[in-house]
């Protein structure tokens, strides 16, 4: 059922070596090719559009659900809408991700909406990795939209990673935090050649004592372009912190457009953004330990994006 190529893509986007434990749904070239549900996690097809509903029963702990998407047919255009209902008091890991192999000259594209509700007191860790490969001139395009609502006392930890092979991406993330809800977003992005990436993250802190932290790190190489729109809106007594850090190299272009807006006197919002090349002292230090200049640079970037 799974070819060597499929397995490689799955490994890249979901750290999967074999069929995952627990609940999963694997989508390949627009159709489901494998699914498993558990007593606590159900996965059902949507009837009105392409996509699935993932329903996690209240109180489910230490379970995971993997929903990787792979595209290996040249020129395939895919679009899904997935809904996640993370039941009250549960604690689960959700691993999504998309791997594209395009060997031809036509564009391959996967657009998807992931719509989450993290219910009262639930904790969700969500990992989304994007990866592309192939020799063709066809562009590999991924446009994910993520909408997350975190109810009272809920926690959402989000890891968004795109390191290799995606030519164009527009990533749009919206988060709504209610009373005492907590959000931690870690974004890692590397672009090279002529790749273009746009990441927009908007967090609305609606509830009292809600907190949000966004740590975005990126590296832009060659002629690639990156734009970040990170926005936090404090509408109650809340705390928000954005750290946006980019390393720029070669002829790349990086734009960081920060925005913080407060609609409440007890909203505390901080935005830090920095763009710069690799500090030469860092390279000199690693060279003085015996690394070549290139090795030093690689190590620094590897650490930065870890």
């Amino acid at each position: 059922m799974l070819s060597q190529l499929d397995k490689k893509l799955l490994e890249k986007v979901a750290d999967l070596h074999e069929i995952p434990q627990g609940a999963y749904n694997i989508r390949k070239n627009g159709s489901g090719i494998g699914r498993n549900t558990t007593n606590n996690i159900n996965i059902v097809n949507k009837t009105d559009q392409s996509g699935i509903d993932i329903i996690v029963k209240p109180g489910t702990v230490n379970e995971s659900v993997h929903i990787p998407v792979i595209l290996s047919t040249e020129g395939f255009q895919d679009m899904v809408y997935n809904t996640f209902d993370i039941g009250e008091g549960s604690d689960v890991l959700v691993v999504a991700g998309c791997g594209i192999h395009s060997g031809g000259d036509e564009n391959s594209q996967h657009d998807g909406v992931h719509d989450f509700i993290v219910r009262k007191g639930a904790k969700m860790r969500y990992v989304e990795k994007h990866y592309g490969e192939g020799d063709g001139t066809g562009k590999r395009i991924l446009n994910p939209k993520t909408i997350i609502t975190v109810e009272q006392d809920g926690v959402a930890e989000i890891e968004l990673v795109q390191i290799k092979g995606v030519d164009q991406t527009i990533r749009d993330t919206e988060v709504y935090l209610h009373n005492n809800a907590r959000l931690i977003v870690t974004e890692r992005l590397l672009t090279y050649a002529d790749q273009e990436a746009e990441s927009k993250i908007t967090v609305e802190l609606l509830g009292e004592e809600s907190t949000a932290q966004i740590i975005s790190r990126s590296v832009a190489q060659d002629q690639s372009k990156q734009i970040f729109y990170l926005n936090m809106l404090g509408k109650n007594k809340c705390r928000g912190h954005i750290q946006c850090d980019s390393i720029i190299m070669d002829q790349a272009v990086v734009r960081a457009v920060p925005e913080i807006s407060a609609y409440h006197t007890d909203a505390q919002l901080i935005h830090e953004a920095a763009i710069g090349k690799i500090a030469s002292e860092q390279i000199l230090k690693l060279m003085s330990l015996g690394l070549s200049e290139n090795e030093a640079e690689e190590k620094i970037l590897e650490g930065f994006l870890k």
Partner: protein
Amino acid sequence: MQEYNHSFNYRLQTNKWGEMEMLQIKDLSLHVEEGGSSVEILRNINLSFEEKKFYAITGPNGGGKSSLAKVIMGIVKPTQGSIYFNGEDITSLGITDRAKRKMGYAFQQPPRFKGFKIKDLLNLSFGEETSEQAICDVLLEVGLCAQDYLNRDVDASLSGGELKRIEIATVIARDLTLAIFDEPEAGIDLWSFQKLVETFKKMHKDKETIMIIISHQEKILRLADEVIIIADGTVKEQAKRDDIMPRIVQDLECGCNKTCDIGGSADAEPIG
């Protein structure tokens, strides 16, 4: 018939006591361009460092000590002159090649690395994946408890003194013929400083590393076999510790008195 070995390629020089000179600096000068004019940083430096010995370099701020250390490590290229290490002309070699020849340098102002754990940085220093025990040992040498530090990032969360001690650990971790420490005491508390003094002694003794420590601390100067005074970009003096220490101490007092005359306080730091 007496056999004469023509292939005997003994390039290392020995000094008048028959000790081997591992590092030689010959007629070295350094100029930098600043605002269109050339500024002289180092002038006609001639020094030699013998194997297994301990050297301290001292002298006023801005005198050229750090520049000299950077020229030795290959971080800064000299305008003139040459450097020989272990009999080889290394003047044109870069930092990496000098590091591979077992030269090490602890930066005066070490950089921070986002995303690097202390463990990662020390692993690079050891040059290969090493045991956690070895990393813990080296942290202990600089007075840091491994448990608290192994997995911390080498970023802004570390204090200046902590960062400095990690920097020293990266040099101690290596197997070196020559180690240069640039003001290792800066920013380090008294208790840790005491530990560092012991660590330098131990490194010198156990690994027979040639130590060159740029310092203003009498305790460190007292560890040295020889003390070199660099001022105004040139070597003012190189002498055995016991010959030079009384004069240094006297100079310090003199300098201090001078400051007092113009209204400074008696406990002002004489050389910073």
